């Protein structure tokens, strides 16, 4: 099994690399696209850039990741809380849900000044914005999970006249865990995006700043290096959630049945 996974991962890496290099080659040498280097530079050249600027890029990445972690934690917490509140009270759901969706339509450009004005602290504002950008997938998936609890399982709790709190701790939350994990898998890479966006709200470091500078400074290689690093971190974050899922959901492991 382990071996299989390793070969699969290897194959995937090889596939992605080949595809990337192939398209880059196609653009540059067959289409003779003048912008080939901007559309899709060679992967090896990007990796070379990363290696050449390793300490600089890794420092920036570290800053972004640490911020992303905060944003992710807060966003996930907010998402879980909102989902729980909405599942507790239909009225709350009816009132809140449409406005949550509306809130997602307000771009940061419009929202940021209001938040700045509200909290008057750049660091706190950035954290709030990062959370705002990540909470929705978590909330939507979690709510989906909470609402999928089978009626009989709920009736059992009901028959014990269990308090809402216990119902949530003993039933709703464990039941929704797999759903939550799905939400987190989406939110984890998204929190990198959010963190990068927040980097661009006048931060001093981080991969987002690198991205902006290099984009506007015409440093294509650094730009693509930053993009690649973002993507890699995103993949890693998703992978971590998958790992956490394996540990947190032991009862799902034993599955039966085959298929042609």
């Amino acid at each position, binding site marked *: 099994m382990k071996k299989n996974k390793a070969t699969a991962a290897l194959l995937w890496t090889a596939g992605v690399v080949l595809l990337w290099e192939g398209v880059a080659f196609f653009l540059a040498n067959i289409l003779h696209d*003048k912008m080939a280097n901007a559309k899709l530079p060679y992967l090896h050249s990007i990796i070379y850039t990363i290696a050449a600027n390793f300490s600089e890029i890794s420092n920036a990445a570290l800053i972004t990741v640490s911020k992303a972690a905060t944003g992710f934690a807060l966003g996930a917490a907010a998402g879980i809380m909102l989902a729980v509140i909405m599942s507790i009270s239909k009225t709350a759901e009816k009132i809140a849900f449409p406005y949550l969706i509306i809130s997602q339509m307000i771009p*940061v450009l419009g929202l940021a*000044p209001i938040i700045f004005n509200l909290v*008057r602290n750049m660091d706190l504002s950035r954290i709030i914005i990062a959370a705002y950008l990540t909470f929705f997938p978590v909330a939507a998936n979690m709510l989906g999970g909470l609402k999928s609890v089978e009626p009989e399982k709920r009736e059992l709790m009901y028959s014990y006249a269990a308090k809402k709190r216990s119902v949530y701790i003993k039933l709703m939350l464990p039941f929704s865990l797999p759903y939550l994990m799905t939400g987190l898998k989406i939110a984890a890479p998204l929190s990198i995006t959010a963190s990068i966006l927040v980097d*661009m*709200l006048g*931060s001093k470091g981080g991969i987002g700043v690198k991205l902006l500078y*290099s984009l506007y*400074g*015409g440093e294509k290689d650094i730009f693509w290096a930053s993009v690649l690093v973002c993507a890699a971190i995103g993949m890693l974050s998703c992978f971590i959630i998958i790992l956490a899922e394996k540990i947190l959901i032991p009862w799902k492991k034993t599955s039966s049945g085959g298929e042609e």
Partner: protein
Amino acid sequence: GSSSSSDSSESSSSSSKSESSSSESSSAANGKLDKMTLQLKWLPQSQFMGYYVAKVKGYYEDEGIDLEILPGGSDIIPEQQVYNGVADVGVTWVSSLLKYQSQGWELKETAQIFQKSAMLLVSKKAAGINTPADLKGKKVGSWFGGNEYELYAMIENAGLDREKDLTLVQQDYTMDQLMNDEIDAASAMTYNEYGLLLESGYKEEDLNKLDMNDYNCAMLEDCLFSTSEWLGKNKDLYVRFLRASIKGWQDACENPEEAGKIVYEADNSVSLDHQIYMAKEVAKLVVPEGFDKAKIGYIDMNAVKQTADYALKYGLLTQAANIDECVDSSCWEEAVKQ
């Protein structure tokens, strides 16, 4: 309206600036520095070298100021940052400031750092755009969001209709569209995008550039501003800030190489070469030929008027700006007295 504005200002000063306003007079004496924040319009780069030089060389400290420089970004609007109290003073373009003022935001321009417009319209030689009139039928890039009015002025001064005679396209802050021939002419700042074109291998002789200053359509760009209220309460602090800043700008313009290095080290963003290139170009805007560098920050009311006129003419403003209301040069005058 007016009552709410007064309590808003009170709470804003109490929440973020209480320290600076309360310790104002005693600060320098007991060695405690007055905190102050400056909001840049864009990323840290040599465009703002004066402040970095002053900070690194300790000019602000000498004046008893602990200055924090807030970088800008794609979702940051300096006018809002300053008005919201996130920053005390900001850097922005005059036309943009005029617009905010006309909408009721009580902001005042206090010093004009760039005396000239840095805006160019760049095209490849092959496109044959030698004068503004040649723009007819071309695809022309602009960043919009307030950056388009100089271009409008250039187009209309040449007798073209900006709606019918050419196509205006949004640029994405890179020069790729021009390089890729998706547009015929691109907006570019002398100190930034134009330099990038040169750095990416284009030769000066391969390019045509139309300079806003040459076609009488220049509008004023980087200036310093703050809220009237903050200025009222912190006049002394602000004069000290200006004094230090002017000193920084003087040093920077005298020695752009050094300034470029300082900016690069303060926040190593774009490459060192580019910072130095930018510093050199910016120096030309801050201290143009024949300009007395002791007067850095001087507000040329005629230029402000031209800026306001174009802003009105091309629809940014809906009514003529009362430019005397918008400008308060008293601090600057005091700062350059000695």
